């Protein structure tokens, strides 16, 4: 741990960030807290089931000039539908405009370094939203990203604009020569009446170890609509902590779908803070993991105002030596009367060496609410299997069919057709299911 601290200290001391105001304060505070807290261990209640210290104890390097990703290399991992998308490329945590491809016009979509955004017309938005997630994650890993917030990117979707081209964000770690630890940071502002779809993918190039510690904060104004899609399909030497923190400050609707297929240790923090009455939030997740992948979905829905609806459904298929963790927390604050909040987590274990730890939680402080959560861990339904077999479908095909049916409920929530098909393809191959 001391090595990591030293590395971070060295790196930051070399940076010539001369900004001021909220950004600098956040970076400094982040560093202080990181030095104080270090990386959370399993003794930390929120990290009880996920050990990230090993994945972070990798002799990372910030070797200068080691990275030179070419546009051609980016080609390799573009997601389907890219032809009609705004493509944002981050390399080792830092946004690279020359590798990116912005199709939307500037009157729809504004992309600025945070260090600039904090000075200009977006100052108040940055000041009041950047670092908001720290209040929900008082740990060293969140603090560590804050220390690098000055490198971050600001994205604003303008008022009344429905952005036609979805945002495809690629977070590339170039681990061809050294072990890479990156700290991408974005603040996305979606103004009133705007609509946008965001797709995120992490990519590691090379075979060295890679760790992405990312924070994305999203602030959503009145009557706006946001769709967030995450696809996680990495190698076992790539681990990450991804925090997505959504504040719905106006009556708005946000959908999130998180698909996890492969990786080392994957921790997804997804927070929805419902700060206006009458918000709608939908959180869906599918983890279909095998090998020794460890996936931890940590979600928070914080209902602060009345009449909101939140719906959460996470489903998992866990095979081989994989481990899945689901930790969902719903808060209903005193003023959030008439809240409807639902949470469900369903798991199927396919092997005797697979593990599921699930912890669905409710914290309710208002009386006029409808809240429920449920979780199941089990096998495929024997009845259903038998039914299919009695119709002449073989055991293997029947299982594939049922597992695919189990997964499809989540896949259907992806409202970007090329992405949905792409994910379905991978899942089907994984399950030996013929579409």
């Amino acid at each position, binding site marked *: 741990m001391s090595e990591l601290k030293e590395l971070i200290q060295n790196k930051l001391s070399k940076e010539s960030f001369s900004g001021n105001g909220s950004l600098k304060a956040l970076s400094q505070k982040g560093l202080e807290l990181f030095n104080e807290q270090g990386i959370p261990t399993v003794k930390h*209640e929120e990290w009880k*089931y996920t050990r990230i210290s090993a994945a972070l104890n990798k002799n990372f390097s910030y070797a200068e000039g080691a990275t030179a990703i070419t546009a051609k290399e980016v080609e390799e991992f573009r997601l389907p539908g890219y032809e009609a998308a705004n493509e944002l490329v981050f390399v080792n945590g830092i946004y690279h405009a020359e590798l990116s491809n912005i199709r939307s016009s500037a009157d729809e979509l504004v992309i600025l370094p945070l260090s600039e955004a904090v000075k200009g017309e977006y100052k108040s938005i940055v000041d009041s939203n950047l670092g908001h997630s720290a209040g929900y994650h008082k740990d060293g890993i969140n603090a560590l990203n804050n220390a690098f917030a000055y490198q971050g990117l600001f994205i604003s979707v303008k008022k009344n604009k429905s952005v036609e081209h979805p945002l495809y964000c690629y977070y590339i770690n170039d681990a061809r020569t050294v072990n890479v630890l990156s700290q991408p940071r974005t603040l996305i502002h979606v103004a009133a009446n705007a609509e946008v779809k965001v797709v995120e993918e992490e990519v590691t190039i090379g075979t060295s170890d890679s760790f992405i510690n990312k924070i994305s904060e999203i602030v959503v104004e009145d009557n706006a609509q946001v769709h967030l899609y995450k696809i996680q399909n990495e190698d076992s030497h790539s681990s990450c902590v991804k925090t997505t923190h959504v504040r719905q400050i106006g009556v708005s609707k946000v959908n999130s779908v998180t698909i996890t297929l492969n990786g080392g240790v994957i921790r997804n923090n997804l927070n929805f803070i419902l700060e206006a009455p009458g918000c709608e939030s939908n959180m869906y997740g599918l983890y279909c993991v095998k090998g020794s992948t460890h996936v931890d979905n940590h979600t928070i829905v914080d209902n602060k105002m009345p009449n909101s609806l939140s719906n959460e459904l996470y489903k998992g298929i866990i095979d081989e030596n994989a481990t899945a963790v689901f930790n969902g927390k719903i808060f*209903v604050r*005193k003023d959030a*009367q008439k809240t409807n909040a639902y949470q469900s987590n369903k*798991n199927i*274990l*396919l*092997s*005797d060496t*697979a*593990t*599921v*730890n*699930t*912890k*669905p*939680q*409710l*914290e*309710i*402080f*208002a*009386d*006029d*609410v*409808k*809240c*429920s*959560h*449920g*979780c*199941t*861990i*089990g*096998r495929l339904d024997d009845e259903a299997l038998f039914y299919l077999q009695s119709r002449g479908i073989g055991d293997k095909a029947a299982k594939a069919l049922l597992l695919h049916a189990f997964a499809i409920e989540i896949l259907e929530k992806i409202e970007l057709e090329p992405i949905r098909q792409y994910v379905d393809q991978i899942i089907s191959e994984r399950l030996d299911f013929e579409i």
Partner: protein
Amino acid sequence: MSEMLNTLEQTALSEYKYGWVTDIEADEAPPGLNEDIVRFISAKKNEPEWMLEWRLKAYRHWLKMSEPEWANVKYPKVDYNAIKYYSAPKQKKTLNSLDEVDPELRATFEKLGISLDEQKRLSNVAVDAVIDSVSIATTFKKELAELGIIFCSMSEAVQEHPELIKKWLGSVVPMTDNYFSALNSAVFSDGSFCYIPKGVKSPMELSTYFRINAENTGQFERTLIVAEEGSFVSYLEGCTAPMRDENQLHAAVVEIVALDNAEVKYSTVQNWYPGDKEGKGGIYNFVTKRGICAGVNSKISWTQVETGSAVTWKYPSVILKGDNSQGEFYSVAVTNNHQQADTGTKMMHIGKNTRSRIVSKGISAGFSQNSYRGLVQVGKNAVNARNFSQCDSLLLGDKCGAHTFPYIEVKNSTAQVEHEATTSKIGEDQIFYCNQRGLDTETAVALIINGFAKEVMNQLPMEFAVEAQKLLAISLEGSVG
């Protein structure tokens, strides 16, 4: 709606009816905790050397531990040196018969509705009455002894049945298990011991009634139940304490062992003084209860109705070690005014075909916080384990909180685990419907709450179900709408 809230609030103001103090002379240890106190307690009880050594070991271990902080409860730190660890009502050393029990004490228990007089006995219930640190009387001993059932105070068991105590004490809850169990192991003063021999089904309910009386004391009782092969026993525990402005500590340990084909049913009606309506005083109820289904086809069932205590920290658990064994946990926890409860269970599936069932009903009113915390663990070898959990919360008013923290850990693909939880309030439409049938709001609320808790109440032995139902209504009196 406002009428409903008014009714709720009135209920919240109702008085604790067991809040009186009996004026009896007590034989006490000075406040504070050190090895001398441990020796003092052991000497008072005339304990053999091994028992003292066991206590001292626990005490030394306790010194190295720190108080747990993970529970969803807030209370000022307990000053362990301000507590008196031993307080016994002064009476003649040995009692030849129950008739010799001090009339004051006898009256105390009469007032609590517990008759020590076998002529006026509670139908079919044997009682061990514990006041402050010691057991006062145990009824029906002779009748039980004829069947080979041992039912006596823990002090007596240490003297009379050392081989059983040595074998089983601390076997389910090791002295080092947690902060409060270590403390209890060091200073426990009395409690009940119950041994059901092979093949015997206890013909009556066995019950312990705990009463804290003296000031500034803690109560640290220890209960041990051993059910031999093929035996059955239903056990009930009740508790009350006087109203006092300062908080008092109750840190008990209950251990249950069920061997092959044995069944133990343990019911608790916990009504320690909850503090006044401003949250002053009340009992800290930090209890470790655990049973082990050590044998095949064994079963342990916990039922609890929790209405008292200022702060509760309690997770009656079952270790499902024997194949085909079963664990059950049925709980109603009511919190009102400023009470805090963090309670639930642990079901640890180790053996094959083990089953567990959890039904938890939380009712929060006033300014209280009510948390369910439960762990369901399915180990690698627990083939075909099944668990079903249902946790429902009912909120009465908008100043209280209901929390659900289930932990589910599964390492076996043949397991089937289901957890469901809901949070709701009493609907205005439900109240109106009742009103329309001629029921006033208070009656309607009582009816709905009893309906909510029914699944758990049904698990209580008949003799106590009615009492528990009344208790539920009293605890919430004036708080519903």
